[in-house]
């Protein structure tokens, strides 16, 4: 009898891992992706006759921790009703005991793949603005994502942007319009995010998050993540490396975008570096502040992070107000001509 090779073993493992959805209204189609917590399958909702993405835990979870995480993720996504966040259809339990969560199936590409075909900086910034606006909404609801990176952002066929994978999201407590902490879907959040436990993607992770200081992580950790996404959109590279720490315990400083590509505008370089500041208090206050900064950049308005030379600001103002200058110029010319003609 010949021994089983790796390919056969992997196939068998995959078949064993494949959940039985027969107790639900979903029919299995194909495996889309797999993460640390579970696997996402493309399924077909037989009742509503539409495709759906079904995330299923890898195995039954006797400790209940992964279950709690998946249910918490689903509740966070359900709470965040926004065009930039994938709608949740339902959460349930399979006959085998594994918890699943069904959500809208998003056709599209992850941002890191999508931008390969988008050389235009303005288009990239408009995509980034949508991401910031989505995160601004989440921050307003008291939710932080904690794992923002290009691979967790999907761009749909019509340019719509969806922030995915809220598995590490955290509720910052009671906010206007949200439930009280005790009765909220995120009750027990602190138990799932203990100090010293590091979760996220190192290359895009804020220093305070990478240090495992869970209590210090707030919306500004997401601002750092957004800065990382902007850095990627500008340079095509992540701001950090997988192994972020030097042997002496200091963090490797982020290389300025303009050092990687001198064509990157100074203003965007400054915005990116402000978002990626090591100290949270030096970053933008939240996603909305960063969105406003990008919007101001796109409209040619002054920025918080960058103060250009006086002549440059004057030129930008003149460029924005050509009609006003033309009208004032016409008035002065006409006044001069009237006085000149009268005298002559």
């Amino acid at each position, binding site marked *: 009898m010949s021994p089983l090779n790796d390919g056969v073993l992997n196939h068998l493992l995959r078949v064993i891992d494949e959940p039985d959805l027969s107790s639900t209204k979903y029919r299995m189609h194909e495996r889309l992706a797999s993460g640390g917590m579970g696997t996402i399958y493309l399924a077909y909702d037989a009742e509503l006759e539409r495709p759906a993405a079904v995330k299923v835990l890898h195995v039954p979870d006797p400790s209940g921790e992964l279950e709690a995480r998946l249910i918490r993720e689903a509740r966070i996504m359900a709470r965040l009703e926004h065009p930039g966040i994938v709608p949740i259809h339902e959460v349930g339990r399979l006959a085998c005991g594994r918890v699943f969560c069904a959500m809208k199936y998003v056709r599209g590409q992850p941002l890191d793949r999508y931008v390969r075909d988008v050389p235009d900086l303005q288009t990239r910034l408009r995509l980034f603005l949508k991401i910031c606006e989505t995160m601004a909404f989440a921050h307003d609801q008291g939710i932080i994502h904690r794992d923002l990176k290009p691979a967790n952002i999907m761009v749909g066929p019509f340019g719509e942007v969806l922030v995915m994978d809220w598995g590490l999201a955290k509720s910052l407590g009671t906010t206007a319009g949200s439930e009280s902490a005790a009765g909220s879907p995120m009750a027990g959040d602190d138990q799932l995010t203990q100090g010293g436990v590091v979760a996220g993607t190192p290359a895009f992770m804020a220093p305070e998050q990478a240090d495992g200081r869970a209590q210090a992580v707030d919306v500004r950790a997401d601002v750092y993540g957004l800065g990382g996404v902007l850095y990627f959109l500008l340079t095509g590279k992540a701001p950090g490396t997988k192994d972020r720490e030097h042997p002496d315990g200091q963090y490797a400083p982020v290389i300025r975008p303009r050092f990687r590509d001198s064509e990157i505008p100074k203003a965007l370089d400054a915005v990116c570096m402000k978002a990626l500041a090591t100290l949270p208090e030096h970053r933008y206050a939240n996603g909305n502040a960063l969105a406003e900064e990008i919007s101001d950049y796109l409209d040619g308005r002054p920025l918080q992070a960058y103060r250009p030379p006086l002549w440059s600001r004057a030129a930008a103002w003149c460029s924005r107000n050509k*009609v*006003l200058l033309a009208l004032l110029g016409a008035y002065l010319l006409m006044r001069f001509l009237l006085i000149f003609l009268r005298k002559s």
Partner: protein
Amino acid sequence: MSKLTLGIVLGGILGLLDGLSTFFVPEAADMMVQIIVGSTLKGLVTGVIIGYFAVKRKALWTGIFLGLGVGLFLSYLAALMPDPSGQHHYFEIMLPGGILGAVVGFATQKFGRQSAGTANA
């Protein structure tokens, strides 16, 4: 500053400056005060009308042309009054008045705080 306030302030200042330009016309020295006061008032009225329009509607070019129209009309009323020699100065009064109205129209559309829920995009 709200759009209405901006219209009034800008209209008043530009009207005053326009009136002060009479210093370059020695023949009008006898009527200096009337011209300056009248021009300032004309600017204020223009500012109120254009500022009110900007609060109600956001439309750059409509605002500019409305400013031009209001400026021309009010200047025409001012130009109907003859100087002591009985002459009318339609061209010298209406042209700057119209352009200043257009400036106020542009400024109130482009700058100033829009009251929530009052303008349609």
